[in-house]
């Protein structure tokens, strides 16, 4: 696994405007050191899931989780790296391939990694890798001497192994419109 000082948190958040801002603001305000933060939709269109990798040399992941939990728009938080988990980082790496040596080298290196060349021309190639963060790092180190021209990474996404499930059970997003005259909360019609 990656660096011992790093911990990975998963947070289920309401898919509402400004939520990313609130989370980012909290991390900055509490002086938590963020390695990466990703956010994307889930199978429930009203819930997004964040994966936050933090450098926990100074504060424990548990404290960060407790702070995130306090945010009203954060439905649940788990310290996924506490137990076995799967994590993936995706990188697109543009490397120089303007001679035979470099083209061969890139091809050979990619064969030894869960990576593939998704675009290749006479001047450059784009390598795609989806793997654990440290494996991505290793590939980058090997490609470096050939000449990396451009790179982009998604940041880590993570999920606990086995039956541990982070889900907002029965989460019903609310649109606060009393249409039936009862004054009760109405369930949002998708």
């Amino acid at each position, binding site marked *: 696994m990656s660096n011992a000082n790093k911990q990975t948190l998963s947070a289920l*958040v*309401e898919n509402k405007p*400004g939520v990313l*801002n*609130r989370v980012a*603001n909290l991390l900055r*305000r509490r002086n938590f050191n963020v390695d990466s933060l990703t956010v994307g939709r889930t199978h429930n269109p009203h819930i997004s899931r964040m994966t936050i990798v933090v450098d926990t040399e100074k504060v*424990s992941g*548990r*404290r960060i989780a*407790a*702070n995130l*939990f*306090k*945010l*009203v*728009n*954060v*439905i*649940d938080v788990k310290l996924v790296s506490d137990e076995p988990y799967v994590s993936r980082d995706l990188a697109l790496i543009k490397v120089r391939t303007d001679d035979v040596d470099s083209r061969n080298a890139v091809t050979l290196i990619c064969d030894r990694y869960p990576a593939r060349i998704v675009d290749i021309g006479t001047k450059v190639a784009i390598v795609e890798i989806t793997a654990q963060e440290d494996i991505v790092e290793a590939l980058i180190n090997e490609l470096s001497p050939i000449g990396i021209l451009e790179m982009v990474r998604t940041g880590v996404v993570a999920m606990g192994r086995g039956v541990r499930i982070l889900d*907002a059970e029965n*989460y*019903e997003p*609310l*649109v*606060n*419109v*009393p249409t039936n*005259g*009862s*004054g*009760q*909360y109405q369930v949002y019609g998708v």
Partner: protein
Amino acid sequence: MLLTGAEIVMECLLREGVDVIFGYPGGAILPTYDAMTKYPQIRHVLVRHEQGASHMADGYARATGRVGVAIATSGPGATNLVTGIATAMMDSSPIVCITGQVPRGAIGSDAFQECDITGITIPVTKHNYLVSDVRELAYIMREAFHIARTGRPGPVLVDIPKDIQNEKTEFIYPEGEIRLPGYRPPSMATDDQVKAALELIANAKKPVILAGHGIMMSGASQALQELAERAQIPVTLTLLGKGAMPEKHPLCVGMMGMHGAAACNFAIQEADLLIALGMRFDDRVTGNLKTYSPNSKKIHIDIDPSEINKNVRVDVGIAGDVGTVLSQLLPGLQSKTHAEWVGKIRDWQEDGDERDILNQDAGSTLLGAQVINDLWKHTGGEAITVTDVGQHQMLEAQYYPHQRPATMLTSGGLGTMGFGLPAAIGAKFGKPDEEVWAIVGDGGFQMTLCELATAKQENIKVNIAILNNAFLGMVRQWQEFFYEERYQATPMFSPDFVKLAEAYGIPAMRVTSRDQIPESVEFARQHDGPVLIEYVIEKEEIVYPMVPAGADLHNMLRRPKPGEE
């Protein structure tokens, strides 16, 4: 019922039991001000600066435990609230701030008096809302009050675009259960936690209770007293915890921390068990964390899980409502005595009394300590005192023992100068039958003295005691101790406060000697509306004891005993 957004705001305030709101009108909030004319049940107090409105709402909330409400317009009106919001956030005070916003169509266009107040206040509110649909308004108002008052209380801001205030919709008050899936404040301890805590208490030889603001927020004063009495555990208080336990109670040692009683700090340092209840181990309370209470086991009960193990590592951390958790602990709590330990603390207290400036010859100068102590005496120790920030605040904490919860209101966490006068006005609105004293310094008072006009216009009975030493006293004290008496920017000119008050039509009196103090209290009581009394005190008084910032809690600078020097 078809109502405008503005009317919905007022309807919701009514249903929350709001009887007074503190605010200042302006363009973007005008529809709501216009709607107020239809709701005479809710009194609106016109402040002179929006900071005053958020402090008044805060003072009202602290005095009553109910949610205080402030209202302001967009842009500068909203930004002026921010100091008061941050103050409420740091001290967990439940307030709801309502701000006008430019119409939805203009948001993001740098419109006149536009400002991203929800963005600005994210770090200093418990939660905030920018209303985007008038149909959500009633729900948001209800959630705002719920979030403000429950769990660890705090400020909530609701920003309402002007066009939403004007828009009409069918109004049905949401009576149903409030459903906030991401908002689940903890309440109880687990059985294991209860067992572990009771075991530590049963085995302790030198236990100390650290009681904070949470005791009062949770209404747990009785339970605290029962815990202390049954297990004979000395109680120390945080600044905001003053009143959690009657300070004249034999087991109450006093306030801890930077300017706390030496006996408290010694007891904490030597204890073998700390029981921290509704407090958060602020740096002003702990001093150097590395040497803080080195030999003790620690139990920490606080409603905010993120406070557990934040500053001090604890052995049993319980995230829960302190009253609920104490009610879980008490049935299993055995009677104990710690005569030797309590005796040792009493010796420290006696040593402290010998060093007390009130027990030493002060000559003819009037001391701040004397003023506070005599105010205590002549108000029977029963007044609600609202302080500003600085030396007078620490003197209040030391020389005005409180017997009841929520009778000492002060800005502890943020340390906001200018808090005193407006918060006292708010407190008086909340507790009209109580005697309310604003105890302020000449510095802090001048930051918000415009609220004298508010007090006069509302004819609200607040007694204002200014302790005037012609210095920013606490800063001067630091300069004396740590900057070789280079009094940079601390000597302070003030207007003639008596004449100033008279210009506002407020009766005023100047006191220069100790024998005038009883008369000054009488003078204050004679008048209906606000009264101002200026106490001209010793310029270079020092507040002892003092733990220098970052020093070990037991290494206090102390006033020498008579003849010691």
